C-alpha cells in the first residue's frame, strides 16, 4: 500500500510497525485536509501559471530583480551582524527581561508589513530620529535603496533570530567547555566546536532571512514611497492595503504612484503579488517600470520554489527547535 496513514501523537513515523494503533479520526482528518488544500491549491496554481508565463517576462524585470537581490543580500548581512549576537544572548544569556526582548524582536513577524513600513518611516522619514539628523547635519537624505534595505532587514530579522536561537539552544554549551578544558582557547573552541555544530542551522537561518527580505514588499513600498512623497499621508493609504494579508496590493499607498495595485490578479497567491510589487516599489523614483502581472507570474513561482527548498532543508527545526 502506498498510502501512509497519519498516526496520532508521532511527528514522524520512522518504523512502519505501529501502522494501525490509532489513525486520526475523520473529524480531524477532514478539516486538516481542507486546510492543506487551501494552501496547496493556490501554490500549485502559482507554479503552473508561472510555467505558462515564463516566456512573457516583461521588460525591465531584470533591473528590478537585480536591485532586489542586491538589497536583500545587504539586508541579510546586516541581520547576520546584529541577529546572531542577539540570538546568542537569547539562547545563552540569563538576564531579566529576556522574554520581553524576545517578544520585541519577534514582533515584526506578525506585524502587518505595511505597518512595519510606517513604523520605519517614523524613524527614517524627514521628521524621524534617523531621518532628520543626516538631512540637517549633512544635508543628505536617506536614499530609497537604503530605506529598502532597512525595511527588508526589519521584517527579516525575526526569522534569523528565531532560527539561530533554536540552533544555539540545540548545541550543548558543555561541549565548548569540554574543548576549553582540553586546552583549547576560546577562539579555538568556537572555531573547532561551536561553529561546526551550529553552522548548518546558521546557514539555514541566513537562507530564510535572505528569502524573507527578498520577498518583502509591503514594508518596502511603504517606506520607499513614503520617503519619495513625504507629502502623501502614508498611514491613511498604506495601512488598509497591507493590513489585509494577501489582499489588496499596498501599492495603492501612493496617490498616483507607479504601482497599479489593481492590475495584479488576486487569484494568484496574494503573497506573490505582493512580491512583485515590492520589487517595483523598490525601484528608485524616476525610473518608472511598467508593471504587469507578468512579473508576479514569473517571480512568484521562483520565490516559491526557493522557499520550499529552504523550508524543506530546515525540516521545521526553526519552529520547534530540538
Amino acid at each position, binding site marked *: 500500500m502506498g498510502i501512509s496513514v497519519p498516526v496520532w501523537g508521532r511527528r514522524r513515523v520512522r518504523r512502519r510497525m505501529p501502522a494501525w494503533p490509532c489513525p486520526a479520526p475523520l473529524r480531524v482528518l477532514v478539516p486538516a485536509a481542507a486546510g492543506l488544500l487551501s494552501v496547496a491549491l493556490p501554490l500549485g496554481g502559482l507554479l503552473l501559471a508561472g510555467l505558462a508565463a515564463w516566456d512573457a517576462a516583461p521588460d525591465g524585470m531584470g533591473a528590478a530583480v537585480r536591485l532586489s537581490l542586491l538589497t536583500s543580500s545587504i539586508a541579510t548581512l546586516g541581520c547576520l551582524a546584529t541577529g546572531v549576537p542577539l540570538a546568542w544572548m537569547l539562547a545563552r544569556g540569563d538576564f531579566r527581561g529576556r522574554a520581553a526582548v524576545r517578544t520585541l524582536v519577534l514582533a515584526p513577524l506578525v506585524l502587518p508589513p505595511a505597518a512595519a513600513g510606517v513604523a520605519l518611516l517614523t524613524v527614517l522619514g524627514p521628521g524621524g530620529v534617523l531621518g532628520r539628523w543626516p538631512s540637517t547635519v549633512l544635508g543628505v537624505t536617506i536614499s530609497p535603496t537604503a530605506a529598502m534595505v532597512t525595511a527588508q532587514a526589519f521584517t527579516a530579522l525575526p526569522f534569523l533570530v528565531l532560527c539561530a536561537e533554536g540552533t544555539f539552544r540545540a548545541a550543548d554549551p*558543555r*561541549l565548548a567547555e*569540554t574543548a*576549553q*578544558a*582540553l*586546552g*583549547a*582557547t576560546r577562539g579555538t573552541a568556537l572555531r573547532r*566546536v561551536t561553529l561546526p555544530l551550529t553552522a548548518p542551522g546558521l546557514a539555514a537561518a541566513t537562507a530564510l532571512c535572505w528569502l524573507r527580505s527578498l520577498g518583502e514588499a509591503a514594508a518596502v513600498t511603504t517606506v520607499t514611497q513614503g520617503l519619495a512623497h513625504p507629502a502623501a499621508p502614508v498611514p491613511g493609504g498604506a495601512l488598509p492595503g497591507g493590513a489585509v494579508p494577501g489582499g489588496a496590493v499596498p501599492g495603492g499607498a501612493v496617490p498616483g504612484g507607479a504601482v497599479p495595485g489593481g492590475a495584479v490578479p488576486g487569484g494568484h497567491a496574494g503573497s506573490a503579488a505582493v512580491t512583485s510589487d515590492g520589487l517595483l516599489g523598490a525601484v528608485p523614483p524616476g525610473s518608472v517600470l511598467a508593471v504587469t502581472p507578468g512579473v508576479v507570474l514569473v517571480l512568484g513561482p521562483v520565490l516559491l520554489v526557493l522557499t520550499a527548498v529552504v523550508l524543506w532543508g530546515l525540516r521545521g527545526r526553526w519552529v520547534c527547535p530540538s
Partner: protein
Amino acid sequence: MMDAHLVAEWPGFRLDVRIAARDGEVVALAGGEGVGKTTALRVLAGLQPSCGGYLTLDGVPMNAWPAGRRPVAMVAGEPLLFPHLTVLENVAFGPRCHGASRAAARHSAAIWLEQVGLSGRHHARPRDLTPGESHRVALARALAVRPRLLLLDEPLTTGTLPRPRAHSLLRHHLAAFPGACVLTVTDPADAAPLSTRILILHDGVPLREMIPPGP
C-alpha cells in the same frame, strides 16, 4: 602531588573540602546527590570559579590558571564527545590544542585508543558508539593531554557492566596513569576496590575519611 582546598558557594550551598593526593593515589569522593562531588571536580578542573581556597600541583599554585592551561583533565558523567568529529579526532583534539602537529596528535590518539581497547574504531562517529565505548573514548581523550591530575565523575555508574568487571577495567586503564586521580561515587563501597582513600561528603563538607583495605 596535588594539594587543594576547594571552596565554592551559592545561595543555600557551600562546598569546603581539603583534598591532597600523591602521584598514583586515587581519592574517591563519595556521597549522594547534591553533596558537592561534581562541584568539587569542576572547581579542581577550573570549570567553576572557586571562592577562596587554593590548588597546588607539584607545588605550583594553579587557582588563577584557566581550565585549558591546568594540567588537569576531567571525564564528566556524560562522555560529551564532539559529535562532528570521529573517535580518533576526538582523542587527538587535546594534543592538537597543546601544540602537537596533526600527525603527532593522531599518532598519540591512536596509542591512547589502543590503551582503552578501541583501536578498531578510529573512524567511528560518537553517535555510533555504545555508552561504554563512549566513556572509554572520553577517558582516552582526557588521558591524551597527559594530565598531572585526572578527574573522573561517576566512572562506575555508566555502562551496563557488572561491577567487578567495571572495576577491573578502570583499574587497568588507570594502571599506567602516573599522576593523582580524584573520582566520585555514590556508594563508598563501590570505590573501595579502586581507591586509596575515600572522602565521604555531606552538604559540601567532608563527613569522614576512610582508608579501604588493599585490593
